[in-house]
Structures are given as structure tokens and as C-alpha cells.
């Protein structure tokens, strides 16, 4: 059973890679990425804007959502969880385009409105994963730590956060990967980014513009995804990584 599953997974993977290579061969053959070579300065500027929007909003969301997640999981403040998660939920429920439009309403056109909109949009996945990660830490473990004389701060830093880290990083990863896609919409409120080429391509029915914008966005998302996989590997304590592996095998 396990073996057939592995074989199927491998076949799917091979088909996926074959399609991907076929696509790139086709795209290059038809000069689909011509804009990148023709206007390298514009490309780099748009890419820079795109990355800036994603990273600024992502960093701000991590800085707010992780401490908030820690705050609501403290027994004393547990009662505030529904309110804070509710508010974060609201940001997520509103369609991304509407969040952008609302942000533009307050901050006018430009990059700051896009950053604020994506920041609001990233809060929920990070907050929820922080809460889930901290909640999943075994109560017996915390009890043992407390009984041995660790202070609450020491329990948080030495026990809770290391054990919740996998989940927290997964939340940041999800938020950022979604944001890279959503940042393409930032063009609509005048914040630039690779969305500029994508929308130009759509309007002009020009595949070269479309591909020169869309493919780098996709690659960026994949790159961030791998980067965070590596980050997870580097930051999560070795013991936890091994334990997870042992559990899965």
C-alpha cells in the first residue's frame, strides 16, 4: 500500500516536472519572456516593488500576530481570544480586492496602502497558527516545567515557543505565499509590482507582458515556499524534527 502510494506520488511528480519543462520550452520558443530581456530595469523595479510590498506587510504581520497569539494563549487573557481572532477573521473574510480598495480609501494610492492591506490580510493565518502551536504544547510538559521552578517567561521561551515553532513558521509561510499572489493586485491601487505587467498583458492580449509578469510571481512564491521549508529545518530544534520524522515513518 505504502509502496504503491510512493510510486503514484513519484509518477505525479514526474508528470508535473515534464509539464513544467514543456511549458518553459514553449514559452522560450515563443519569446514569451521577451519583456524581461527588453526592459531589465523596469523588470527589476517591478520585482523590487513586489518583494517590498510582500516583505514589509509580512514582517509587520509577524511582529503583531505572533505576540498577539502569545498574549491570547496566556491563561489570564484567554478570554480575549474570541475578540482578537474575530477581528483577524474579519480581515481575512473580506475579499482581498476589497481590502485593497478600503486601504486605498484611507491611505490614497501608492505602496503604503498595499502594504497595509496585505498586512491585514496576513494576520489571521499567522495568528491562528501561533495559537494552535502554543495550544498543542503538552500540558504535562508545562506542568513539569512549572513544578521545577521555571518562571512563566522561561516556560514560554524554553518550552512553549520552541515546541510551537513548526506551526508558527508554517503560518508565516502560508501568509507570505498567499501575499505574493495577492500583491499582483497592488497595481490596481497604483502600488506597482509585477501586477503592472500582468494587467497590461490582460488588457492588450499580449502574452509576452502577461508571462513576463506572471511567471516571476509564481517562481517567487515557490522560492519563498522553499526558503521557509529551509528556515523550518534550520530553526526548529533538532529533537522535534527527529521526533516528527519518527512519528511519520
Amino acid at each position, binding site marked *: 500500500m505504502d509502496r504503491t502510494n510512493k510510486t503514484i506520488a513519484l509518477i505525479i511528480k514526474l508528470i508535473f516536472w515534464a509539464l513544467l519543462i514543456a511549458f518553459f520550452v514553449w514559452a522560450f520558443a515563443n519569446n514569451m519572456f521577451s519583456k524581461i530581456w527588453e526592459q531589465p530595469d523596469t523588470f527589476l523595479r517591478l520585482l523590487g516593488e513586489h518583494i517590498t510590498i510582500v516583505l514589509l506587510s509580512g514582517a509587520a504581520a509577524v511582529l503583531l500576530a505572533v505576540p498577539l497569539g502569545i498574549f491570547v494563549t496566556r491563561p489570564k487573557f484567554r478570554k480575549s481570544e474570541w475578540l482578537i481572532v474575530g477581528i483577524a477573521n474579519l480581515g481575512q473574510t473580506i475579499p482581498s480586492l476589497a481590502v485593497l480598495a478600503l486601504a486605498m480609501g484611507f491611505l490614497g494610492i501608492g505602496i503604503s496602502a498595499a502594504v497595509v492591506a496585505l498586512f491585514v490580510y496576513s494576520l489571521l493565518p499567522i495568528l491562528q497558527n501561533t495559537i494552535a502551536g502554543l495550544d498543542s504544547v*503538552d500540558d*504535562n*510538559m508545562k*506542568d*513539569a*516545567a*512549572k*513544578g*521545577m*521552578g*521555571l*518562571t512563566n517567561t*522561561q516556560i514560554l521561551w*524554553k*518550552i512553549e515557543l*520552541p*515546541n510551537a515553532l513548526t506551526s508558527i513558521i508554517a503560518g508565516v509561510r502560508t501568509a507570505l505565499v498567499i501575499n505574493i499572489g495577492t500583491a499582483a493586485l497592488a497595481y490596481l491601487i497604483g502600488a506597482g509590482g509585477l501586477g503592472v505587467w500582468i494587467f497590461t498583458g490582460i488588457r492588450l492580449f499580449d502574452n509576452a507582458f502577461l508571462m513576463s509578469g506572471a511567471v516571476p510571481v509564481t517562481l517567487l512564491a515557490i522560492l519563498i515556499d522553499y526558503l521557509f521549508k529551509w528556515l523550518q529545518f534550520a530553526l526548529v*530544534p*533538532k*529533537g*522535534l524534527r*527527529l*521526533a516528527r520524522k*519518527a*512519528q511519520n515513518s
Partner: protein
Amino acid sequence: MIHFNDVTKVYNGNVKAIENMNFTVEDGELVIMLGPSGCGKTTLLRMVNQLESITDGDIMLNGKSVRHSNKIEMRRNIGYVIQSNGLFPNMNIEDNAMIVPNLLGWDRKKMRDRFNMLMELVGLNPDEYRKRYPHELSGGQQQRVGVARALAADPPVMLMDEPFGALDPIIRTHLQEEFLQIQKELKKTILFVSHDIDEAVKMADKIALLKGGKMMQYAEPARMLNKPANSFVAEFVGQDRVLKSMSLYTVRDLANALTLKPVIESPDSQNINENLSLRVAISKILNQEADQLIVENDNGTRKGSITLDLIEQFLHREIKESV
């Protein structure tokens, strides 16, 4: 010394979990709190290191009120072992075991020496386990590390909450015996929670039997088995309490108290070592054709023989004495 002084615990203003508890665990004593689930034994244990608050009364730990001590500092001076060992999966075995010394700011060399010494004490090779992680160890090994961790800063007092409860019977027996050896050497003041009467009889200097937050009897195991204070105690220790009490004595105890019968040569009677417990001796007599067992000392010299009559005589004498 742990002294419980009129300790009372009330939940939600009216549910009494512990009522006017008064008893003392003397220095170097291992006291086991025993009772059905919900009797308050774990609550009482957790009140000592203030994981549970005390509603009324006080607990004196080496003469100091736990209610008025600095909780953090006090807990670092109490070894704490729980059933599901509570080792931290993000730390290797050495970091786990040395967590309290680390908090106390010991230097690296001192911690390493202490780790090596403790691991030898609990029967694990320090170098083999130092860099390993909790999930790589068996339940028994994890619990050994749990004990080593509790002993790390050499606390005078230890609290143990069913430390061997989650282990299979064979490993449990092993660890109980090893722990008794460790305790013989270290002479810690230990408060221990169990629900297993056999574990209590085997390990405890005194047993505190609780029911519904009240003390039913606080006595040495022999006394509790031979002279239960009330019908609840009698029922809890079991109909076979006399047989259980036999595991408290060895054949040597009997030989010292009474004169052994002369050896009658018979191919059916087995030889036994004088260090054997009387409970096992009885079982051996019942399990053979002859009426007697031949007692030998460690050198193999025959000292005489024992029979069921002799054991019965010894039993009556002991019960009379313990009353």
C-alpha cells in the same frame, strides 16, 4: 521535613477537596499517599510545591511556610517527577536533566560531572544518552531520566506523582527496586503518590491512606496491613492483607525472631536463601510436596528449615507487636 498543618482545600467556595489534613513526613522518609481516584492525593502533593493553592492551614517545608516562600526559588529546591515524565522534546537528554542546575547558573564543568554521576545512578550510560532526544528512549529510560532530572540540583525533598504508573509491570518492578536502592543511598525526604497498594507496601516507610480528602490512616505498611484503622482501610488494602504483609519480612527476620526447625532430609524440599521474602517462601511451600523449606545463608550453609506452622507463629507475634 514536610509538615501538613490543618491543610484544607476548597474549590469554588463549597467543594471540599482536602479537609483538615495533619501529618508529618520526617527527614529521609519515603511516604506514599494512597487512595482511590479523586481522594485528593495528587492535589495534596501539588499543594506542597504550590502548583495548587492552599485554602486554609499551611504546609511547613523544613520549617518554612510554603505559602509565604518565594514559589520559584522553593520549587527549584524540590525534585518533581510526574507520571508522563514531562521531558522536553526540544532538548537533548543532558539539557533535560540539567535544566534546574542551568537555571541556578551552575558552570559547565559542574553540570557535566553531575549529569555523568546521576546517569550512572539511574543506570544509564551518560555518554550514550547525552546527545539523544526523549523520543528515542523507551518509557522506562525516559522515566529514569525523569528521576535524574528531579535529583539534578540535589534537592532535599522530592515529590513524585505516580512516577512508575505508566510503565509495564516488569519495568515498573525494576525501577521500584532501583529507586529504593537510590533512596537508601541518598535518604531524601519523599512524598509519593500511588494508587497501587503493592507498590506502597514495597516502597513506603509510611503510608497515608486518603478518602474523600480525609486521612483514613497514617501508619507504617506493616501496621496498616495488620491493624487497619477502619473498614475502609481494611477493604482498600485487600482481603489478602496478611499475605501482603508477608512481603515486608524476609526469612532472616523469622530466623532472628524464632528458632528454625531442624533440617529433615527429604528429596522434595527446596533450598531457599534467607534473604527471600516470606511471601515468596509461603508460595514455595504451597507449591511443593514437602511441608518444609531448607534455609541457607549467602554462603550456602544450612541454618534450618521453615514450615507453615512456623510462619504462622511468626505472623501472630508480629501482629501482636505492631499493635
